[in-house]
């Protein structure tokens, strides 16, 4: 922003008001719940969301406004504009009673099947019950029933009995993802959330955000149903590698103290779920479903064993052989991974630098049917760090036809392939091949030297997204001893390079 632009920024009008006797300020136009939140005061709410329209239907955010006449006035805080001098009371006896009444109503026909509900442990209904109700139901009549397992889409299961009709899911599809795939049919206590009948919701690539939004256990991931209790899990902040936006995510996995040796070891090192991590600069509050499915991506069969022409080898032995090959090559070429972290790329460049010409490849291309780009988050490049790689090396030329391309000079005698997505057919005849890959692949055994390398969840680092924003990811799983960290091995591999080689 230039200096001249500063002068045109409007100063927001501030209003003085108070919550529970504490003086504070609100921006003119804010509602009580918005101003409260901005001042660090949380007013209980189910249906309100800072980035969605205000339906004012749950009624739990009631507050009392002190009046000079003495008669109390109460209303929902989410739709109440702050006025100058307003005295808001959030904890009077009346408000406590109203909240308890609202909780009684919300749980009236709620199945309270926490014992078998996935949301248990992170459920607002549970939390508010303890905080605001704390009493058994006053009803002595049987609860009404509704559909327990309704497939809202192939990915999301809806339990209508648990649903409190807050409409967060409906508003999300109307206002954020734009699929407008959800609605509320029928009247009264027969009202049900339902998808548009032409099954649009399967096409909404942001569908799973409603699972996070749902304050209760009504919307659950079908795949992760009964997968893990949330209190055994913790999250580590990471970056989604699905495209060049690099959305901030939380990768959920077992807490350290719950990584029991008695369990299947795979359970201790698996991604239990992925949720968005709020990042106003990059993805806001949301991620697309590709991020949700990262477990599938990361947990493809791994390459765990170093090899020399398909024969298992000791990692150190393979490294030595690879270094020798590189050192004796006269026209080596490196194919640089667009999934390499900033740190790995720096190490690669520091090690091979100008001595070995490098080309950046796309490790992943869009798969058939995948959205290339959209209005919200999805970007065309399906690799997390191509921008940083291209800052150091040029891109691999596009193949003009299906025939072997002349992207690589015909006299190339060594190709160092780092990462996935490089077709062996592009390697000139007679060239030696060194491959560094995390994942099992038929081409791995065909390399002269194959070195298995770690994945993002096993190390820490940074990616640079399409807009130049740098975001960190942190390791959450241990790496097996037979697998190398690429960053650590580049220097060793390049040790044999002499200054005589020209670029």
């Amino acid at each position: 922003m230039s200096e001249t632009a500063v002068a045109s920024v409007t100063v927001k009008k501030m209003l003085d008001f108070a919550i529970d006797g504490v003086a504070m300020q609100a921006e003119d136009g804010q509602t009580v719940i918005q101003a409260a939140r901005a001042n660090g005061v949380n007013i209980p709410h189910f249906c309100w969301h800072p980035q969605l329209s205000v339906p004012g239907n749950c009624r739990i955010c009631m507050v009392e406004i002190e009046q000079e006449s003495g008669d109390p006035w109460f209303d929902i805080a989410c739709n109440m504009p702050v006025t100058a001098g307003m005295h808001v009371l959030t904890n009077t006896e009346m408000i406590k009673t109203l909240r308890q009444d609202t909780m009684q109503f919300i749980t009236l026909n709620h199945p309270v099947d926490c014992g078998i509900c996935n949301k248990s442990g992170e459920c607002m209904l549970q939390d508010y019950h303890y905080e605001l109700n704390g009493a058994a139901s006053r009803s002595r009549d049987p609860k009404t029933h509704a559909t327990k397992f309704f497939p809202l889409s192939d990915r999301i299961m809806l339990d209508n009995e648990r649903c409190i009709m807050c409409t967060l899911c409906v508003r999300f599809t109307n206002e954020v993802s734009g699929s407008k795939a959800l609605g509320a049919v029928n009247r009264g206590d027969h009202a049900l959330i339902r998808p548009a009948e032409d099954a649009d919701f399967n096409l909404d690539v942001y569908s799973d955000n409603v699972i996070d939004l749902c304050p209760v256990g009504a919307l659950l991931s079908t795949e992760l149903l009964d997968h893990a209790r949330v209190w055994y899990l913790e999250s580590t902040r990471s970056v989604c590698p699905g495209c060049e936006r690099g959305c901030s995510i939380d990768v959920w996995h077992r807490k350290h103290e719950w990584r029991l040796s008695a369990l299947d070891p795979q359970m201790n090192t698996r991604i239990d779920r992925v949720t968005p991590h709020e990042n106003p600069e990059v993805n806001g509050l949301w991620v697309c479903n590709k991020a949700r499915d990262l477990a599938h991506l990361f947990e493809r069969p791994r390459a765990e064993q170093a090899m020399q022409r398909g024969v298992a080898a000791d990692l150190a032995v393979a490294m030595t052989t690879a270094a020798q090959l590189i050192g004796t090559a006269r026209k080596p070429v490196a194919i640089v991974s667009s999934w390499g972290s900033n740190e790995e790329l720096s190490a690669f460049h520091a090690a091979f630098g100008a001595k070995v010409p490098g080309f950046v490849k796309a490790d992943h291309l869009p798969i058939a049917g995948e959205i290339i780009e959209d209005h919200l988050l999805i970007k065309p490049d399906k690799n997390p760090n191509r921008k940083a790689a291209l800052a150091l090396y040029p891109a691999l030329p596009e193949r003009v036809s299906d025939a072997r391309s002349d992207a690589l000079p015909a006299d190339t005698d060594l190709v160092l392939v780092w990462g996935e997505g490089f077709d062996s057919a592009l390697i000139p005849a007679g060239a030696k091949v060194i491959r560094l890959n995390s994942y099992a692949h038929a081409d791995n055994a065909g390399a002269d030297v194959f070195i298995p390398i770690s994945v993002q969840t096993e190390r820490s680092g940074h990616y640079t997204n399409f807009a130049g924003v740098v975001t960190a990811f942190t390791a959450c799983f241990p790496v097996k001893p037979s697998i190398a960290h690429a960053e650590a091995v580049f220097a060793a591999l390049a040790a044999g390079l002499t200054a005589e080689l020209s670029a």
Partner: protein
Amino acid sequence: MTGLVQRLIPEFEVWKRRYPAGFEGSLSIPALRRIQEERGYIADEDIADLTAYLGVPRTQIDEVVAFYTQFTRKPLGTHHIQVCHNVSCSMRGAEGLVKHLSARLGIKPGETTTDGQFTLTTVECLASCGTAPMMMVGDAFFENLTPATVDALLTELTGSA
């Protein structure tokens, strides 16, 4: 009756002329009524076609059809008998009227006779409290009912089917 909405579009276009610009979505309810007038109920294809014509989200039409009691997704009997059972009507014999009709037709409220002639439902206040007990059959009101007038009406309707 495929393409029903297509056939009705010229009528809808005439209605549009009295609405302000941008009010296309408002046509959903009148259009659905017109569709049901023709078909007797609202078919899945009607909802899809109407959604396309009006350019509104599909859920808007799904919600409207499910919200309003006068719309039905299933065919009803030839004669839809709707008996008011609200306060004033109950005070002047609505409950007996319902029982009488059930006995005559052999069905309970919510059901349709096996020959498809009559569907019987109970409904809320039809703003005819002064002439209770009463009922609607199709669009028409039948008021100040007695067993004799009800029986005569049923005979007439059965004959006319």
